[in-house]
């Protein structure tokens, strides 16, 4: 007898629970303003701590303009990818989410869980430029807005080492080579290279290729429409091989292969530098402790132009995606393309805007002004190519780009062999 009661009670409980769940869902739709946009927007992104505060300031700016919209932000932290995938799988995604992987965006688009925002395309192009707008497009359909950018076309240098050798930050590849030779003659090793698991080297390759082959071919290579055995790839490898001469790198080839990325920066950002320059993205000052002051101790210049190439930036960024049909979300995405939205965070620091019209003087320091200015002035912005590849080819230790470009550092004469191995792995990964 008792058991029957128990089962009954359980059943009631379950029903009540399910009922409550259903009831909860009904609340969302609700009110629809006639003139003003109103409603609720839920947003998920990686930003936590200081970055979260900055983004909430951006949200506050939006809520001022749209008083009837209530925006809630949830930080996914480092687990954003799995969290978002699970939420999408469970049919309960946030209204908007910002992710750093265009590959994941393409996956979502293929699954049909994203809302196209083609109506916003013109607004995005107007504010951010065509090449930044294209980052958020999948096969001609606009899905995302890149709001926060990162500039990976930067070379950091030790100011004292440059002064001692009497060289100026170079603007062309020839100047860079000449500067490297002069620095070497002054007794200082020109480059600090940290192979790490391989991605710092793919970044160097992508920077060279973007300039030597041009943005169009960069896109084609990223989609594997041209083979890695193409002459343009071999030319780019030949150009970058110059950096990897053993006496050009701190610790020689062996040393470079064993150096992790933060250490490669530390070797330059010190008052007894082991090398004069390190080729790494705009995040360099954040990865190591240093006693040097920005500008007077260490500084930065743009990755030089190769054979007169236009200013181009290879980088990364956070792309906002729209998962639900919600007019308030559209308003928020539109707001993100405005200069005001960019400047709120830019003033607070730790932010690079891809917006074309941003006034660089709002950035808090000279170095950010330089790296961020390059990003908004670039003729072409291209997303980090390895992030656009299938993970097995562009993001896996011991495989694909990471592996073969690492081996290239060890053996910079093997241009043809490297190209062939890259092509073989690319064919496998693209299936």
């Amino acid at each position: 007898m008792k058991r029957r009661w128990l089962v009954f009670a359980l059943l009631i409980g379950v029903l009540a629970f399910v009922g409550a769940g259903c009831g909860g869902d009904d609340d969302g739709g609700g009110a629809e303003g006639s003139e003003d946009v109103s409603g609720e927007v839920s947003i998920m992104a990686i930003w936590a701590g200081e970055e979260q505060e900055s983004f909430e300031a951006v949200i506050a700016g939006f809520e001022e303009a749209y008083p009837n919209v209530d925006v809630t932000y949830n930080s996914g932290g480092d687990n954003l990818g799995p969290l978002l995938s699970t939420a999408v799988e469970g049919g309960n995604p946030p209204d908007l989410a910002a992710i750093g992987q265009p590959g994941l965006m393409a996956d979502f688009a293929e699954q049909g869980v994203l809302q196209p925002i083609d109506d916003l395309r013109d607004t995005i192009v107007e504010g951010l430029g065509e090449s930044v707008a294209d980052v958020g497009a999948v096969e001609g359909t606009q899905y995302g807005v890149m709001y926060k950018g990162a500039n990976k076309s930067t070379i950091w240098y030790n100011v004292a080492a440059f002064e001692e050798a009497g060289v100026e930050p170079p603007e062309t590849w020839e100047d860079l080579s000449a500067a490297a030779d002069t620095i070497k003659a002054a007794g200082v090793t020109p480059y600090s290279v940290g192979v790490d698991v391989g991605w710092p080297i793919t970044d160097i390759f992508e920077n060279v290729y973007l300039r030597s082959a041009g943005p169009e071919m960069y896109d084609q290579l990223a989609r594997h429409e041209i083979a890695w055995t193409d002459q343009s790839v071999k030319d780019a490898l030949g150009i970058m091989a110059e950096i990897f001469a053993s006496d050009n790198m701190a610790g020689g080839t062996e040393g470079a292969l064993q150096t992790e990325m933060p250490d490669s920066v530390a070797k330059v950002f010190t008052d007894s530098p082991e090398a004069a320059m390190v080729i790494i993205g705009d995040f360099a000052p954040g990865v190591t402790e240093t006693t040097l002051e920005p500008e007077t101790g260490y500084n930065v210049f743009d990755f030089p132009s190769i054979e007169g190439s236009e200013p181009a930036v290879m980088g990364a960024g956070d792309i906002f995606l729209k998962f639900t049909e919600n007019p308030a979300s559209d308003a928020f995405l539109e707001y993100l393309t405005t200069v005001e939205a960019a400047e709120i965070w830019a003033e607070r620091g730790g932010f690079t805007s891809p917006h074309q019209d941003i006034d660089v003087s709002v950035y808090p320091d000279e170095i950010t002004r330089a790296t961020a200015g390059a990003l908004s002035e670039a003729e072409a912005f291209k997303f980090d190519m390895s992030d656009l590849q299938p993970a097995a080819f562009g993001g896996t230790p011991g495989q694909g780009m990471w592996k073969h470009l690492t081996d290239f550092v060890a053996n910079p004469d093997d241009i043809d062999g490297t190209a062939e191995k890259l092509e073989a792995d690319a064919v496998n990964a693209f299936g």
Partner: protein
Amino acid sequence: MSESVSTAEAPTRGLPPGDGEPGIWQRYGVVAVFLVPALVLLGVWIVYPTIRTIIRSFFDRSGDEFIGLDNYQTLFEDDTLLTALRNNLLWLLIVPAFVTAVGLVFAVLLERVRFSTAFKVAVFMPMAISLFAAGVIWRLMYEKDPDQGTVNAAIAVVKDAVSPSGVLSAAKPSTDALQGGPKGGLVLERELANGDVAQLGLTGIRSSDVPANAEQAVVPEALAGGITGVVWRDFKPGGGTAGEVEAEELGLPGVTVELRDEDGRSALETTTEADGTFVFEDVGAGSFRAAIGPDTFSEPYAGVSWLGASLITPAIMLSYAWVWAGFAMVVIAAGLAAIPRDLLEAARTDGATELQVFRRVTIPLLAPVLTVVFITMLIYVLKVFDIVIAVAPGSVQDDANVIALAMWRTSFGGVNDFGLGAAIAVFLFLLVIPILAINVRRFRREV
């Protein structure tokens, strides 16, 4: 067992007649209460994941398609995974035997010294840190640069005492006029006769490496009957013109210059002044060549590349042995203490040497303990993982790969191929089973 007990005891209990069932229920209930938590935990954390992993290993990357044994085939075809298998085999062959041997030697030797406890504590200490932390420590100790890596620093101290490094170890010729390399010294191409002035320009010298008493370089006057010249740092900020002594370019004092005759033999030697000049007086007739000897360029010790592709596996094995030697020593020492002294005494009285006592008496009596240590190490070595990931830099993790690391890298480290990862896990599981079986049988026999 519990069943037989409960059925046997049930009738003796004074339970209400015609209601025998509840008694059995109660008994099963008690058993269940005690067993269920353990069974649930075992089921959730061991049985279910094991079965799920085995099933998953027969499916492809996405988990949708059944592909039979393809994953297992890949296991023996993929280069990276083959390296992992080969490395694991090396680990199995070398490390358990090595650790047991080191433990045995420590245990036997420490039995005979005073303050042996202090030594034992020192050897056992590494067991107190996690393998990962030990890996981080060794990673730093293995750094190639003798200024950073303890291991290479120790070698460098010895090496530099034997052959000190030269004053201008990094210097290179500034123009083609100087030929040669650090091995044979740098020789001026141009032949010199008396009355000539030689210019030996060097570059690639850090300003901080230029001797403090250096002065502006000067091209000396020609000397009748002799040969003069200058050795200088052919560099000024911006580069300057190679091969030309310019303002702001410093002479290099204290450099030994040789004058070699036509047969290449060193005829005369002198050292340079503060402004880099040198003079050979009264050289006589004939043609000579000026050279800077190889001693000037001998490079400081660069360090062994422990973390390079070729040495990485032995290097990790050594650090692993450092951690586990203490465990082996303590267990073996306990076994040693249990050996009856009279047997050893008897052997000695019969005239056996210490070595014979050790080989013929101690080792056979210790055999069970040694086997326990050896088998424990076999199991641990098969699944070695954390120390490898901690010591090996990213660029050589392929060369240092072992099965457990390959499993992790394949499943979670970017490849995201859970099918292949599961196959590696199952393969590792199969490898461990025979050793486990041996161990369980041994325990049974001993009980």
